């Protein structure tokens, strides 16, 4: 379809912006507990960063640097989310019970609060990334 075009400015800025977007999406994902953000918006933002790379570099190049099958990412995310809910069975608690723990004097980070809700959010994050990328790539690759 498209042959060679000179899009140097787009390519150069994408290398910068894609990393900033990815970092911001991870920030949003981790901030979810105490500030606006969470798995859903974090996943969408990551999806946006990957879509930007696809738009700039084309399908083959991104497939080479990100050899991920986004379609299997959906069940992986779902499985993580469901298993964190079902994990409470082991402790005799009702389904979906969450717990958290304060860790003190962690190197570099100081005091952190680790919650199992983060694992559930990780499931949501992976599912959202998988779904958005599957939708976009399926439509884009349609002949």
């Amino acid at each position, binding site marked *: 379809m498209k042959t060679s075009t000179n899009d140097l400015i787009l390519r150069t800025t994408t290398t910068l912006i894609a990393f900033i977007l990815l970092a911001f999406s991870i920030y949003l994902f981790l901030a979810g507990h105490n500030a606006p953000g969470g798995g859903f918006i974090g996943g969408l933002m990551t999806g946006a960063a990957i879509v930007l790379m696809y738009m700039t570099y084309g399908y083959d190049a991104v497939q080479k640097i990100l050899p991920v099958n986004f379609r299997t990412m959906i069940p992986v995310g779902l499985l993580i989310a469901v298993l964190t809910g079902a994990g409470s069975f082991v402790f005799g608690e009702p389904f*979906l019970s969450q717990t958290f723990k304060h860790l003190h004097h962690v190197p570099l980070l100081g005091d952190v609060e680790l919650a199992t809700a983060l694992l559930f959010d990780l499931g949501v994050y992976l599912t959202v990334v998988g779904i958005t990328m599957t939708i976009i790539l399926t439509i884009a690759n349609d002949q």
Partner: protein
Amino acid sequence: MSNLVVLPILIPLISGIIAAFLHRKIGAVRIFSRLMAVINLGVAAYMGWFITQNGTIILETGGWKAPYGIILVGDTLSALLVLTTNVIATACVFYASRSLTNKQESFYFYTFFFLLITGVSGAFLTGDLFNLFVFFEVLLMASYALIVLGNGKIQLRESLKYVLLNLFSSMLFVTVVAFLYSVVGTVNMAQIAERVQEVEQKGVLTTIGILLFFVFGTKAALFPLYYWLPKSYIAPNPVVSALFGALLTKVGIYSIMRTFSIIFYHKTDVTHEMFIWIAAFTLLFGVIGALSTHNVKLIVAYNIIPAVGFMLLGIGLFNGTSMEGSVYYLVHDMIIKAALFLLVGAIAYLAGTSDLRKMNGLIHHYPVLGWLFLIASVTLAGIPPFSGFIGKLLLLQGAAQEERIIMIIVGLVTSLLILYSMIRIFIQGFWGEKDETIVPDKKAARSFTGPIAFLLVFSIFLGIGAEFVLPSVEDVSNSLLNPSSYIQSVLKE
């Protein structure tokens, strides 16, 4: 132990996810799905037994107290319906491999199948109105995927109608939940019921109730809102049709049953009177549709509508006997509709056509299938030793108690016409001269027969073993007419 009640939701959900990993290995995914469906049936049966022994189970998910967190309520009605759902799911999963092509199976059929079961079981078990909406969406999303699976031209056209209508009714559902939340300030069904009781359903609450009825009425295919159902239900593969016909409309009826017996029951002269009239029209129009066509699949699809009418009639009459009849008919109809859809799917496959006028003398080639079809037809119409009889008898007794002679006549005439529409398939399709040119596909017929016979065994048991089933149906009807027991068991005051 309260976690037991989440298992019928959780097992199909996890099975669906794992089936997605295996989707290319058809042999493995088949065995896995069958195994998980049987395990889930066992768990549902155990849950039903546990609930009849120990009473209602309440699961407060995440350990949050009742009105604040989402709760799952396993009472006898939910347990009965979850068990029936799993019986049907087991039959369908064994039928699927013959009915679907390998390509369709590898395109995540089993994942969507299990997600459909997740949604249906979740809708039966939840005790929270917004959570009910979410489970409706889970089952609808899965049904959208199943209805287009195989992307035939007709499927594409019918699925568009189906998706548009269901999106509209889902949107209405959200709006109604918003209205209700702004009036009573909660989405927990027990607490809504309590607060509606406090103000005796004054003001705008009856309007909200009727709006909610129209949402569920669209899902359940009641009289003015059923036009989308018949054609879109015959578009997909027979096994998908069986799942839809047996489960989806019944979730709507179950929701009407729940909401209008524990929440909106204070103005029965408005709401329940309306139900009776809608039920009468649903009965008549559905059966007229069933008589209007020569397509065997369409005849069965139209027969869903009068069945829904019978159940709504029982809810509208709102006395002990009619509620019992409704619950009994609900369970009976789920099983028999699944069996009938599987049967006509098999007939259409073996005869190579679904046009009744082109079939002749099938019983010479497929005797077992023919007699199974006769049993299913007379069960549907309500001939005494079989299960349709007891449900209808209770419903008509309920109508007699309220002195609704017209409804009794409408019910009886409809039953006669249902019998006529089904026997027409038997007489025209199965009787007649033996066609020597047909080479019977005995192997396919045998693999179709197993699941159908499995379902009909339950159906016959419901009829002959009515003494065994009736106590639990009476129990369900008592708890439906006695909402304070539901509220107390949830809110524990």
